[in-house]
């Protein structure tokens, strides 16, 4: 997968025979063993591994749940209760899967904000970043459809609200909604097709993850300095150094995960979803799962229906254009004093939007969501392009090794001889 020659040498006669016919061992060796990793990566770089673990965990628990779940409108809710009460360790599988979705999003948001902070979307990693945005979109679709499956009140009304968004599209909107529903409203055909798609999409995610990892191995990893690997001394081989660190971080993440599963399993869910779906009664207050709340707040901040839908879609799609919106030549926010402040303001705006998304759309909440929504787009469309032109970055270190040897202190003020160093990557 990577662009450097494999150093894998088959040892046995069989290995030699096999390698000359399908060089997969060499591929794995060059991608996951010998692959050079910047030696200054922090724990923020372990979330990629954590995410791959979470994808695998969700697929595994999901398949096991599907062995007991019934995707039929009159039986779905009871079949989930059957899993919770009668299936051996069914409660564990379901809580793993339901909380796993939240953990997946926690990890992906940390992963994304890390990318934003360290400029990981910049050349030459644009395609890598866009593949990530595609994975994020697929994740959102998967999570949304998964939330519909228990067929509780929030499932049903969440599905109604979200599918109705498509009716805002001029002319073809109503046809699209009818194709999504397979009827005249959200009903059994909707549940059935959502189940089929919820089962399919994770495998599509896995496919795009392969491309994402492939693209990563072509460009190499970014690192806290944003300065590329220049000599062998800047890097360590992926195995054992990065592998062991990823495993350690994953175990720590699992402790966090386990806390939710075993002690607050319903904290991230919504009480109304323990009430069976009822098309004649709307819950007093429809809210999506927490990971959609910032986008939901943006949807509701715009007074016009179509405008709200467009703003919500744009809030995700704009990420794909980030490599060209940010005009700064410096990657890492560690060397961009102004951007660093705007980054943290942006983080707070996103958290605030999430909180506002959970509030009823009235009075001060609406005004606050509008202010935050405007800031969200201003950050991408005005601040990032303009900042790169006016900001004076701090001098970059000449190499990764230099920052490592100096330690964390005194990161500033070193002469920037970066451009002169010849690239001896290998």
């Amino acid at each position, binding site marked *: 997968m990577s662009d450097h020659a494999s*150093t894998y040498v088959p040892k046995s006669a069989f290995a030699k025979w096999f390698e000359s016919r399908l060089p997969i061992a060499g591929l794995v060796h060059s991608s996951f063993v*010998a692959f*050079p990793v910047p*030696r*200054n990566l*922090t724990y923020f770089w372990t979330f990629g591994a954590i995410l791959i673990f979470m994808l695998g965990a969700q697929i595994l628990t999901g398949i096991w749940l599907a062995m007991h779940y019934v995707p039929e409108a009159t039986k779905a809710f009871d079949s989930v*209760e059957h899993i919770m*009460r009668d299936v051996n360790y069914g*409660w*564990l599988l379901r*809580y793993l899967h339901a909380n796993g979705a939240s953990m997946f999003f926690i990890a992906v948001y940390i992963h994304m904000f890390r990318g934003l902070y360290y400029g990981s979307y910049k050349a030459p990693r644009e395609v890598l970043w866009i593949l990530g945005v595609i994975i994020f979109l697929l994740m959102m679709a998967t999570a949304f459809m998964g939330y519909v499956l228990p067929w509780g009140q929030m499932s049903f009304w969440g599905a109604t609200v979200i599918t109705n968004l498509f009716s805002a599209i001029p002319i073809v909107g109503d046809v699209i909604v009818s194709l999504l529903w397979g009827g005249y409203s959200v009903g059994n055909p909707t549940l059935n097709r959502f189940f089929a798609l919820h089962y399919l999409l994770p495998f599509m995610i896995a496919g795009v993850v392969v491309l994402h990892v492939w693209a990563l191995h072509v460009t190499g990893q970014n690192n806290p300095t944003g300065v590329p690997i220049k000599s*062998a*001394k800047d*890097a*360590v*081989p992926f195995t054992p*150094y990065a592998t*062991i*660190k990823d*495993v*350690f971080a994953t*175990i*720590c993440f*699992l*402790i966090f995960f*386990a*806390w*939710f599963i*075993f*002690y*607050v*399993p*319903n*904290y991230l869910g919504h*009480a*109304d979803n*323990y*009430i069976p779906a009822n098309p004649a009664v709307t819950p*007093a207050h429809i809210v999506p799962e927490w990971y959609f709340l910032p986008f939901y707040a943006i949807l509701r901040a715009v007074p016009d229906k179509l405008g709200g839908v467009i703003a919500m879609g744009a809030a995700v799609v704009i990420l794909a254009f980030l490599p060209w919106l940010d005009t700064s030549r410096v990657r890492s926010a560690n060397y961009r*004093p102004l951007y660093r*402040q705007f980054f*943290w*303001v942006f983080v*707070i705006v996103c*958290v*605030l939007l999430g*909180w506002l998304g959970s*509030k*009823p759309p009235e*009075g*001060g909440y609406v005004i*606050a969501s509008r202010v935050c929504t405007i800031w969200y787009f201003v950050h991408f469309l005005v601040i990032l392009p303009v900042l790169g032109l006016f900001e004076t970055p701090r001098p970059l270190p000449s190499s990764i*090794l230099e*920052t490592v*040897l*100096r*330690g*964390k*202190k005194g990161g500033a003020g070193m002469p920037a001889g970066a451009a002169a160093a010849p690239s001896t990557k*290998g």
Partner: protein
Amino acid sequence: MTTARALLAAASLAAGLALPLAASAAEGQPHPPREKWSFSGVFGTFDRAQLQRGFKVYREVCQSCHQLKIPFRTLSQPGGPQFSQAQINALAAEYKVQDGPNDAGDMFERPARAADNIPWTFANENQAASANGGKAPPSLQLMAKARSYERGFPLFIVDALPFFQYQEHGADYIHALLTGYKDPPAGFTVPPGGHYNEYFPGHIIAMPKPIATDGQVEYPKGPDGKSPVPETVEQYSRDIAAFLMWTAEPNLEARKRTGFMVIIFLAVFAYLMYYVKKKVWAKVGGEAEGLPGTAPLGPTH
């Protein structure tokens, strides 16, 4: 640091924005008071005697209208009220369920068995609705998870934290609702068929006060000929709330027990892994993070 200052400024701006909003949202509805439950906390378990009393309250008070869709057999499962198998069989036999069709093609009634669900008083939702003023009384088996109340920022975060965690909002609500029937405040008109309840959202509830008086349900007597707990509306409400928490989360005890072992295991494993990782990285002079200028670097390939 400028970052820290910017953060602080933004956070205080956010807080300033949030506080008046939070205040404006919290009008009208009082929160159910927080109760002490034996099943809360990391080591919480159900009180068997309380669950058995709670089931008695269900049978004598709630059952005439509300469905409890759980099988009889679960009442003897570990982690629940743990009635004996003989008690369950005798209890089930008191109920009639429809079965069939038989060889002649007819449906017939037979005594219930432990494997059957506890039957409902009504044949279906519509019958229940027409007998209860147009709306069927909700099933109770999930009530303790299907009801909650908002704690607002920042308390909702506290509910998730280790040592402070709290998942018993539903039980609080049930207890508060059953003890929350009061005379309406002056100027509050209660429409016909409605009842004033302090804790019901909007205050007007169709259900008349279910547990009317102290002593309504007779509890099993202790060796001294008296019930070990008071036979009061307060205690009945508490016991039925605990019982409904069990029906909603029958594996609560197994879950907490398993969780304890899993987290201990993961903590030990993480500890061991940390030292393995440290040892591996020592070969290249340790990790960059906070390790200024340690040992020379080895070749990477």
